[in-house]
């Protein structure tokens, strides 16, 4: 199995020009098979870059990459629901046409709207077991990105019973841990969500959260909380492939993601070992240590030395 790479949705609030340049370079240079577009954390950010999305999508398609439209994680009230309906309406045209786009649902409202049409299910939907996976497959899910905290034992069991559903596991990037109605970025700046003034745009990899004794712990991204550590399963890729996982997700950080994707491509192709790849990745991402604890059934913050 070759193993496909997906670039997950950009979780952070990057300025629109930077976002556009990032995706153009991904389209032109990154060896990824699919790219998720769309705002998943805070609907207030969308208007800043929405106008660029058609050009970004077209450039990705021309480069032979599948465009995946990711929906919001926490959908509450009119504005969020409209955004999901808009994605679905757009998807209707795109996925039924020749373009091969896919919509990735990140909550059960989106799953309901996509019922009966081929779609993907994102990692923010609780797919912990075979029963849930089967139900989603019945509704049209072709691809399911598994929740971040699943241990190897669960991934193995799900892969064994996945049938025609393609399973995806995130192997690089800060790990999303929580979503809220409250904006912690605004709160940290003494503001509320309604008067946030988009303070999240100063932290392209999230706002560092430390314990009172100065130990890095978490990262704030608006209403989302992520790990401080960068989740990294580069050592575990052979094990994941043996389980039957065929697709691997890289989550954008403001580092050279083209280089990151090339490293994962070479690992998937068996051209370098995990240990060497991890060293290269650490040089590219110096702002936080790596963690792989969830995969090994430990606390998510843990780093378990890989067994060869």
């Amino acid at each position: 199995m070759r193993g496909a790479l997906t670039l997950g949705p950009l979780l952070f609030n990057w300025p629109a020009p930077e976002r556009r340049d990032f995706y153009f370079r991904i389209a032109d240079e990154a060896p990824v098979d699919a790219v998720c577009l769309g705002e998943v954390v805070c609907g207030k950010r969308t208007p800043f870059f929405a106008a660029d999305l058609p050009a970004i999508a077209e450039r990705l398609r021309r480069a032979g990459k599948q465009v995946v439209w990711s929906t919001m994680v926490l959908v509450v009230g009119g504005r969020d629901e409209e955004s999901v309906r808009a994605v679905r309406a757009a998807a209707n045209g795109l996925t039924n046409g020749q373009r091969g786009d896919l919509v990735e649902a990140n909550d059960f409202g989106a799953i309901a709207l996509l019922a009966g049409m081929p779609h993907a299910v994102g990692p923010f939907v609780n797919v912990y077991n075979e029963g849930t996976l089967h139900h989603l497959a019945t509704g049209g899910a072709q691809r399911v990105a598994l929740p971040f905290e699943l241990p190897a034992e669960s991934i193995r069991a799900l892969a064994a019973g996945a049938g025609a559903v393609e399973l995806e596991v995130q192997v690089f990037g800060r790990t999303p841990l929580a979503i809220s109605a409250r904006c912690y970025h605004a709160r940290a700046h003494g503001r509320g969500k309604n008067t946030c003034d988009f303070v999240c745009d100063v932290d392209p990899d999230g706002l560092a959260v430390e314990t009172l004794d100065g130990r890095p712990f978490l990262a704030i991204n608006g209403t989302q909380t992520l790990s401080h550590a960068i989740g990294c399963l580069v050592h575990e890729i052979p094990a994941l492939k043996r389980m039957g996982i065929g697709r691997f997700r890289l989550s954008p950080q403001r580092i050279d993601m083209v280089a990151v994707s090339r490293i994962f491509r070479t690992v998937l192709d068996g051209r370098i070992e995990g240990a060497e790849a991890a060293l290269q990745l650490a040089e590219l991402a110096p702002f936080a240590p790596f963690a792989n604890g969830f995969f090994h059934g430990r606390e998510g913050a843990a780093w378990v030395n890989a067994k060869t």
Partner: protein
Amino acid sequence: MHTDIPELVCPAGTPAALRAAVEAGADVVYLGFRDATNARNFPGLNFDEAEFRRGVDFAHTHGCKVYVAINTFPPAGRPGPWHEALDRAADGGADAVILADVGLLDYAAAHHPNLRRHLSVQASASNAAAIRFFQDAFGIARVVLPRVLTLAEIAALNRQVTVETEIFAFGGLCVMAEGRCALSSYATGQSPNTNGVCSPASHVRYERRDGNLISRLGDFTIDKVADGLPAGYPTLCKGRFGAGGCSGHLFEEPTSLDALGMLPKLIETGASALKIEGRQRGRAYVARVVATYRQTLDALAKGEMPILDDTLDALTEGQRKTTGAYMKSWQ
């Protein structure tokens, strides 16, 4: 005058708390079995089969219903305990089960079609389309709404959906969308979603250093207070952290939801039931909270406007209360 007074759904972490809640006027008690199948899987809590059956007898004799929370997510390959919990709830005369996992809802609808199904807050169904998904697929009769919604959003939802809704009135407050939070897993390896524990006592350590009491969860310091000052339990999202050069309660203060003062507004949202959180609480606490809410609801039912004072302040976490996400300013 209000004629439709919501059902009062009260916590029963132990048989003693169950009796206290029933005697204080609960319309419903909710409980869990003594394992990871429910989201309050703490030592010394919950019901074995015999206790459950006696509890159902006691509640039903007093005209009170019993809901069973089986609201964690069965791990792949190990659904057994969750299926057994469902079977036990059905056989023991539960009036409803409170479920979150799609696979388990599927199992319940197929194997116990006559057992009433409620959607747990852990399912995070925060919009009308999501609620309809669970209604259409599994015939849920009620949804417990996430604690991320404002009163205005709850009222709007109630106009859009046909299932009953249940909302929180009192008790501990998740500040993150429930069932979608892995903060405690990240620090401890114990998942709220699959192990049924958040910030578990087994991973809490207190340490005295330099005139301070430091509370830790796993390897991480959650709070630090000067010796002699009261130290709260280190629930991760209620801890103090530093960010952007400041430190404090970055996520939420150690506080409890208390919506007693806005009960008429809660009722106006059209919710069918009001829930009191607190299966980890003792019977004296449960008796006092339930009795207060019972009296207030009864007064409202008679068209009286009870004095909604601060009678429960002593029972809130850190003696501080909030109306939480119900007011938009909380966000």
